[in-house]
């Protein structure tokens, strides 16, 4: 286990390197650069060229790349070409918003998916099962940006109430913060819960057909005991894997949710910076997202032996 713990993060480096290198190159391949947008339609050639020179954008791409790698090695994530704020400053300001939204969405998705998946499996073929599966398919089918828009539009039309309020930090005003965050979290969580719920149901059904479950029931164990002690333990590893895979989905969903609900998070910031071709900011945000996804996958890996002692990470 310890060896695994030491070895696994080492794989972060090449993965992160490949992803951010791809992002570094790809964003520069998009037509138009940040200077075009800075001077927009009043692009006096002399000024634009001077600006491009000052920002180092006239350097060959490999020079820019090597310089950027050098900065990264010293922990400098870069500085915005537009605002001259550092990526670290932006991450500090916006990271907690996205983190909170992501955690809330993930929690809500699990609170919905696991119980509903179990109940649906337990009541296989019943109206409850059909209803819950329909819910899951509905959540998969409805785009969450539409859902979010409806949550804002309908109350405002019916009751003149706006649910997209002014964001406040969690620790400054917990109630005000939760009032605003709860709706995007529920929408994001509900959307993410659908596939987890379906996987939970499938796995529970599969495990329920195993001999040891039949044996457990034959021994006279209470149904709840069978589920908690035997079914879930065996059904959960693939579900946990899927939960890990949902994290990128939640991150990408947060881009939309932050836009619709006016949340000052990283997803919206990333979108703005792609539009503005603010290369250092896009690279820094991407690197962070890569780090989050890799970390979640590591946590998922570490959970396997906890859920199923037959799995040994050491081997």
């Amino acid at each position, binding site marked *: 286990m310890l060896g695994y713990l030491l070895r696994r993060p080492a794989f972060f480096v090449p993965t992160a390197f490949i992803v951010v290198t791809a992002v570094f190159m790809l964003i520069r391949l*998009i*037509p*138009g*650069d940040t200077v*075009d*947008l*800075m*001077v*927009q*339609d*009043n*692009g*006096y050639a*002399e*000024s*634009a060229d*001077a*600006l491009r020179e*000052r920002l180092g954008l006239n350097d060959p791409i490999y020079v820019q790349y090597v310089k950027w790698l050098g900065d990264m090695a010293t922990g400098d994530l870069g500085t915005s070409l*537009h*605002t*001259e704020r550092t990526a670290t400053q*932006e991450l500090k*300001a*916006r990271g907690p918003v996205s983190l909170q939204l992501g955690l809330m969405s993930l929690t809500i998705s699990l609170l919905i998916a696991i119980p509903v998946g179990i109940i649906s499996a337990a009541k296989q073929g019943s109206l409850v099962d059909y209803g819950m599966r329909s819910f899951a398919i509905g959540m998969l089918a409805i785009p969450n*940006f*539409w859902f*979010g*828009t409806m949550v*804002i*539009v309908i*109350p*405002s*039309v019916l009751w*003149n*109430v*706006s*649910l*997209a*309020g*002014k*964001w406040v930090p969690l620790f400054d005003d917990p109630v005000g913060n939760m009032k605003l965050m709860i709706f995007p979290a529920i929408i994001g969580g509900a959307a993410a819960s659908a596939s987890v719920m379906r996987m939970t149901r499938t796995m529970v059904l599969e495990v329920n057909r195993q001999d040891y479950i039949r044996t457990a029931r034959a021994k006279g164990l209470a149904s709840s005991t069978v589920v908690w002690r035997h079914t879930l333990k065996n059904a959960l590893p693939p579900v946990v894997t899927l939960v890990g895979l949902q994290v990128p989905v939640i991150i990408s969903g947060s881009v939309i949710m932050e*836009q*619709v*609900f*006016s*949340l*000052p*998070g990283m997803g*919206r*910031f990333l979108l*703005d910076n792609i*539009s*503005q*071709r603010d290369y250092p900011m896009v690279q820094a945000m991407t690197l962070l997202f890569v780090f989050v996804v890799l970390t979640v996958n590591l946590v998922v890996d570490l959970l396997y032996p906890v859920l199923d002692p037959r799995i040994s990470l050491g081997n």
Partner: protein
Amino acid sequence: MSKDNYWLRSQMSRRKLVTRGGALGSGAAALMLVGCGGGDDDEDDSGDSNGGGATSSVTPQAVLIGGAGKVINGEEKYLGKTPTPGGTLRMSYQVDPITWDPHQTTSIHTHLRTSMFNSPLLSYGFGPKKGVADVEASANLATGWEQVDPTTVKFTLDPKAVWTSKAPLNGRALKSSDIKFTLERILKLPSPFAGLYTIIDKIETPDDQTVTMKLKQPYAPLFNYLSHYYSQIVAPEVVEKFGDLKTLESAQSLGIGPFELDSWQPSTQMTFKKRANYWREGGPYVDSVNIRNIPDANAVLAAARAGEIDVAAVTWENKDSVTSARKDYIVMQSLSCVAWLVTMRADQGVTKDIRVRQALSLGIDREGWLKSLYNGEGTIDNGPIQALWDTWRVPPGQLGEGDKYLRFAPEEGKKLLEAAGAGNINANFTFTTGYGAAVAEHPELLKDMYSQMGVNLNVNNMEYGAFVGAVMNSKPTYESMSYAGVRFMGDPDEMLWDMYHPTGSKNFAKVNDPEVTALLEKQRQELDTNKRKEVVKDLQKMLAVKLYYLYTPSFSQLDGWQAWTADYRNHVSYDTGGYLRGVWLDQSLKS
């Protein structure tokens, strides 16, 4: 003309498309958002009504709203009342300023905010008594000016003008050296606005209250340019202290305008407070202005319906959803300040031939355009001087030979194309979705119209950033046709020079026409306004024949504010502080 074309499709689609777009959360921010004309279903789909010339082309409606605007919902009950100070004006914006330095970007998102605490040397008139497009230069930091000779102008600063009481300015008086510093900064920086001021040869400051500008040649647009947002005056101490003006701290240290920047939470909100030592009479009346960052258009409307914000523009599509919730919500209609146009190269390719450009103009069914998209409201032509500026513009019907090319006459156009050896043109036509839903149908409508003339447009929708690089900044690789929105807010010279002079920054067509250039230079040097207007009018008549750009019809847009937002009136100049200075909150109307 066959009805089996754009008529039926566009009549059905536009309103529904935009409405659906809104309902489906089309909140993408466009850098040049405009409202749209139209409204109810079109009553007339006769495609045959468009070939009869252009003499009836300016509708009474268009003349009525012009630059003054017209209230079409609610009533301005506060008019004539004595302003009551106090309260917080609540507004929204979609995009954060990318920098706080007004001289280093052309982004309106910067200028809309920095104009709250900065101010230009001269200014325009604002408020309900003025039009949204009133761009007559008047006193501001300078009480007036004297044209000493054709190339020398002397400005006298207002002795009452003082900076913010915050450090490092500490409430000191405005000095002539501040003006000199600012203009020289614009010229020395890599500022996108430098080109407007290179005509200044020397700035002298004989005393603290006097600024004398020596020009290289007479320059009529100077006063309007000095009134505009790009000439916001800044103080040398602040630039020296912070190195530049990009940071929040530098913005918080500035203030010659009516407000001060109190706080900014990126992507959340910003608050401006009334300056305690503001020096001009007549406001500001509100204690503070809170501007929330709401990127999604539906969320803005929800906030307006809930009464959480005091000012929110509406569109024809969503106007009713706000006014049904708030019957007294004031909605004002005015012509759009944006000119939408087809650009093409005048120096190469088939469009170098004037007959091809004239044929392409004859292929646009302008009246049909207005009927199908905008309920027949607007004007059939909108450039080079937009319909909004009716005192400078030559309207259709008075363009002489140019009127001929505003007709819809595809058969005639076809003959011209054949005569030019350019039958069956197959052109790439670049457009950007970044302009928003308001004009999303224009390219397809144009494609349909041109298809009747044997011209095929391959419409290529680009992301805004890519479009700016490929088209707006006139990269050498740009060779085919495109559809763009441009606007000027300061002086007719801005649009004419930029788009038609060989050195113009928006000369997408690469126009280099000695006749046009001569008139462009003449209007710049003509200091008598009436005579200058005549030159500008001659120029418009010439351009209506040469057709380096094809302007599509003008349509109207809407603005909106709550019944209690007294004396509010938007202005095309982006001088937010200027036009919010006179706004007050009429609490008696809040019930």
